[in-house]
């Protein structure tokens, strides 16, 4: 795995000499990509900037809300615009509940219409947009970007890093274990391993002056796993939330599509993907979080996020 980046860079250089068409601005961008601090699209397209802004706001909201709540109770944000944390919140007057936690309570205690109603807004978005939450809203993602940066820096320093590729089915096994285990044990387990919930609990403890707590320990373990053992491995192969969104969004019409005639088989899209998708070979499944990084980095603009039934 370690040698992969180098070989890709070399193959790109080789191609550059072979094919004149690649010798344009895009090629330089693609080559720059293989050294950069986190394999993130530099510059990127406008919606990548929007995505990063949304993610930063997401983390900020999760951390800032308990700090404000510690002073102003449920009037944290003006007029109570945002109340709560990742598990359950009232945003702009709409009650929301995390679909994973909602499903876990359903399985443990039977159907509860109120819980379904509160999970519905996110559920509908997931059904239409697929696993978009993982790429566009999850407050863990800024930490993952930091993990990439640290990973790159450690690599530069010559620290040997693993990039273990756990099998994709593992996350469904984790989801099944968490849901069935919650029902069998009579304790909700999802919030103990689900990064958004861990982040919220850690922020709450810090805001209320209760010390760091166990949630931070698990979160740190997740982060260290992603940094030293498997790049974004938790998101890709372990996170039960990601698994649930993959299942629910399996029929989503929004997909990454490739125009074969424009593709130069440079593999940059495959390398940049956090979730082990392979857009270059048209091997994109429900595990895709629609983050669009592959689209933004493609040197020849062969990829696009588009709706089924429309030309890409």
């Amino acid at each position, binding site marked *: 795995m370690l040698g992969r980046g180098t070989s890709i860079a070399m193959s790109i250089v080789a191609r550059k000499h072979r094919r004149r068409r690649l010798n344009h601005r895009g090629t330089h961008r693609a080559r720059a990509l293989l050294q950069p601090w986190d394999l993130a699209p530099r510059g990127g397209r406008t919606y990548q900037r929007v995505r990063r802004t949304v993610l930063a706001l997401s983390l900020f909201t999760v951390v800032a*809300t308990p700090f404000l709540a510690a002073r102003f109770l*449920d009037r944290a944000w003006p007029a109570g615009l945002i109340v709560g944390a990742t598990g359950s919140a009232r945003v702009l007057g709409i009650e929301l509940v995390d679909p994973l936690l909602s499903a876990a309570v359903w399985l443990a205690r039977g159907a509860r219409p109120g819980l379904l109603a509160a999970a519905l807004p996110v559920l509908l978005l997931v059904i239409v947009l697929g696993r978009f939450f993982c790429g566009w809203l999850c407050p863990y993602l800024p930490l993952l970007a930091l993990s990439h940066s640290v990973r790159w820096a450690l690599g530069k320093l010559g620290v040997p890093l693993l990039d273990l590729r756990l099998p994709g089915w593992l996350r469904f096994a984790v989801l099944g274990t968490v849901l069935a*285990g919650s029902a069998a044990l009579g*304790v909700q387990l999802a919030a103990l391993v689900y990064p958004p*919930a861990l982040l919220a609990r850690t922020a709450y403890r810090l805001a209320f002056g209760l*010390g760091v707590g*166990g949630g931070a320990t698990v979160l740190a373990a997740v982060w260290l796993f992603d940094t030293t053992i498997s790049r974004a491995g938790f998101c890709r192969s372990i996170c039960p939330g990601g698994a649930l969104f993959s299942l629910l969004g399996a029929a989503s019409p929004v997909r990454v599509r490739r125009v074969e005639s424009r593709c130069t088989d440079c593999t940059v899209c495959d390398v940049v993907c956090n979730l082990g998708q392979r857009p270059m070979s048209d091997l994109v499944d429900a595990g895709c979080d629609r983050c669009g990084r592959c689209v933004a980095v493609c040197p020849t603009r062969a990829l696009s996020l588009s709706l089924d039934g429309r030309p890409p």
Partner: protein
Amino acid sequence: MNRRGMIGLAAGVLAGLFARRPGAAAPVLRPPGALPPGEFERACIGCLRCAEVCPTRAIRFPGGTGLDAGHPFLALREAACVLCMACTEVCPTGALARIPAQLERIATEVRIGVPVLDRKSCLPWSGQGVCRLCAYVCPMGPRAVELVGPQQAPLFHAAGCVGCGLCEEACPEDARAIRIVPAGAAAGGSP
């Protein structure tokens, strides 16, 4: 890691989870309106909404990595519950049943814990004076705490007590004779 290694790891994690089953742990004080022990842990998703709205900050979350880490408890030693019932209003899963902030409803439906009095520390019971603080702050009045004898010593009635902990908070620093304990816990001391 191969498949066998992973299955072994998963089995280890599961075994660890079962070993730390919280039913074995001592029962804890839950916020007002909480479902009975067992049911509550099944329903609570650890969303923190109750802690966020608690005006006295009595609702806390444990610090460890145990199975109970995602469930709120009441730190009545540090702050009492003022029975505002805001936590029951925001609970999204019904782990805290909705109870309006009306005295009669609270008196019949809220059972956070039961009071345990250490008569050796209690000022009137140990003959150190007339205190009456607990009876003075009790929102339930004489149905929960009665004053008896010439020194007006408190006599608690667990059946009429909601377990809000106001008496525990009011009890003078050098006495701290009252403790609210979970109803299931074996009560030490005399009521």
